[in-house]
């Protein structure tokens, strides 16, 4: 057979981020895929020794610009646990609203990139067009389109006025309508199905054993979602994890598509039940002890380990991001697929390399 070795990335137009794969292919069928990392590695966990624990919020937000709010939320939850602070109920609801808005924008972004990976440019354009409404909401409510910086230890920095809430609901109606108009394309279009159905199958057992997280895991039929831990206001909101059973790229697409709709619903619920009150409490003192905190990011389970020693600098901050967990499944699903499927499969775990490498 004739072997070809393709250096795929770090600068490659279909990969949004610099990851490298050394692909050994035979007639475009992948035989071996060896990943290489380090093109985004900054070493920001180590920055905890140079920035105090308040400033670290802004740093961990920039672990990943797409799920920045949720990173910061998880970090704050950890510190609040160590400092034994209870966030006011309104603050908890607001955190849910912003985190779910982030999930919507992340999923829409992903759906577009995913479509782009299999060469469906017009779908990419559609999803990104819809996504701009969410970006507008972010900018109007939090002051920035992407990195909202709303979290602080003890609550949130911004509040929502009732008129803003109505406007958000209105915008979300539009988003929902426009997203649903694309449902048949994502689930019925012949070419989309040809490119995704049966590609990169992760069986239920494989997904679990390889430690997949988030939609990648749920598309293989396992209903595990960190929001079931009922952090923040999720104890009051109705939601069931979205599950698909096929475990292929198509199923992962569907899970994220449905989660987009679900998140719209969650934001609506949260706005409907938004209690009055403070958005944050003032915190005093320094954290001490160690804690493991987990939240559900758009890409899956995110774990923060924080060890504090009673000074304003943390002893150790460790972040295990969902993509980190999804890389082994990716490595396992690539062999046997065509070169043309590689971008689709890489996208299908919704990689966030800047999360992975921090």
């Amino acid at each position, binding site marked *: 057979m004739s072997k070809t070795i393709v250096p795929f990335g770090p600068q490659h137009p279909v990969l949004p981020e610099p990851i490298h794969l050394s692909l050994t292919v035979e007639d475009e069928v992948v035989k071996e895929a060896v990943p290489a990392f380090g093109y985004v590695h900054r070493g920001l966990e180590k920055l905890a020794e140079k920035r105090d624990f308040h400033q670290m919020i802004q740093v961990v937000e920039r672990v990943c610009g797409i799920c920045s709010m949720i990173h910061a939320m998880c970090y704050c939850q950890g510190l609040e646990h160590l400092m034994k602070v209870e966030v006011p109920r309104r603050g908890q609801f607001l955190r849910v609203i912003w985190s779910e808005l982030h999930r919507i924008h992340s999923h829409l972004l992903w759906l577009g990139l995913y479509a782009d990976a299999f*060469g469906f440019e017009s779908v990419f354009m559609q999803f990104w067009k819809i996504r701009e409404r969410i970006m507008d909401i972010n900018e109007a409510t939090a002051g920035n389109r992407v990195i909202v910086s709303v979290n602080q230890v003890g609550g949130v920095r911004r509040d929502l006025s009732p008129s803003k809430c109505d406007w958000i609901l209105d915008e979300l109606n539009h988003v929902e309508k426009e997203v649903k108009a694309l449902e048949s394309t994502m689930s019925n279009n012949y*070419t989309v199905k040809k490119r995704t159905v049966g590609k990169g199958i992760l069986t239920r057992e494989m997904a679990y054993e390889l430690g997949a997280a988030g939609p990648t895991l749920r598309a293989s039929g396992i209903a595990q979602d960190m929001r079931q831990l009922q952090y923040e206001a999720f104890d009051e909101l109705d939601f069931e994890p979205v599950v698909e059973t096929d475990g292929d790229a198509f199923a992962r697409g569907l899970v994220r598509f449905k989660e987009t709709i679900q998140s719209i619903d969650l934001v609506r619920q949260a706005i409907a039940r938004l209690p009055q009150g403070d958005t944050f409490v003032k915190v005093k003192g320094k954290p001490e002890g160690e804690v493991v905190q987990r939240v559900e990011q758009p890409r899956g389970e995110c774990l923060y380990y924080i060890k504090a020693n009673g000074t304003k600098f943390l002893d150790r901050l460790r972040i295990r991001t969902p993509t980190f967990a999804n890389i082994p499944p990716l490595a396992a699903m690539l062999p046997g697929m065509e070169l043309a499927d590689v971008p689709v499969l890489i996208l299908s775990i919704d990689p966030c390399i800047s999360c992975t490498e921090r």
Partner: protein
Amino acid sequence: MTLVYALLGVVLAPFAGILVAGFDRILTAKFQSRTGPPLLQPLYDIAKLWAKEPMIAHRFQPLCVYIYLAAAMVSVALFFAQSDLLLIFFVQAVGAIFLVIGAFLVPSPFSQAGANRELIQILTYEPLIIIVLAGIYLTTGSFNISAIYAMDKPLLINLPLLFIVFGYALTIKLRKSPFDISASHHAHQELVRGVLTEYSGRMLALIELAHLYETILILGLCSLFWTTSIWGMVVLLALTYLIEIVVDNISARMSFRWMLKSVWTTGLALSAINLIWLYSGGRF
């Protein structure tokens, strides 16, 4: 006289090509809810590429590019001289082959894979075009374009299925979804820009120019299906191109295996039906 037509064709084709490509990009943008570039954008692109710093990846690259361009120009000239269709097609194939050879020259995995895929594309559309041309022969009794113009009925009436088959070839040649496999105008594919990856600057400008010629040639071939009235021709061309753009916008890019399998099976089946009908003496 034919020489004059041929020369005129060669001179005017790129301008027509620029307009077609410009409209294409604007229409695509409109379908995607965008404004799109100015109409003359393809001209700007080519002129800009022409002025870039010369840079090649292999000493024989210019050879391949110039031959590609020349082949495209000669085939357009032959077309306007109303020459033999098969000959036009073969001359055009020279260009396609040299583009591939040029991509093979460089030890870059992307251009090599692109070249291989381009070969598979050639493999996919070439038989279809030959069959379509044979269908034309069966209807007109000749491979010469002049014979088609001598017909009193449009070819489309006798070759409806072959026109669809030709549409496949058209889509592949225009590098549109679902067949933008070996190269595409944007680099949103796994092979960067496939065949075109290793060309740059002036060489790329020449390739773009040759591609314009090819577009005109293939649209010209398309126009042969309705030669009895100029309006019929225009409507047919406009509709065909519109459908191409729509298909481009409603489909994902497929893999080359799928292309080879499905285009050969459906294409050959459709052409066989149409040809059998012609062989059995069916005529309108």
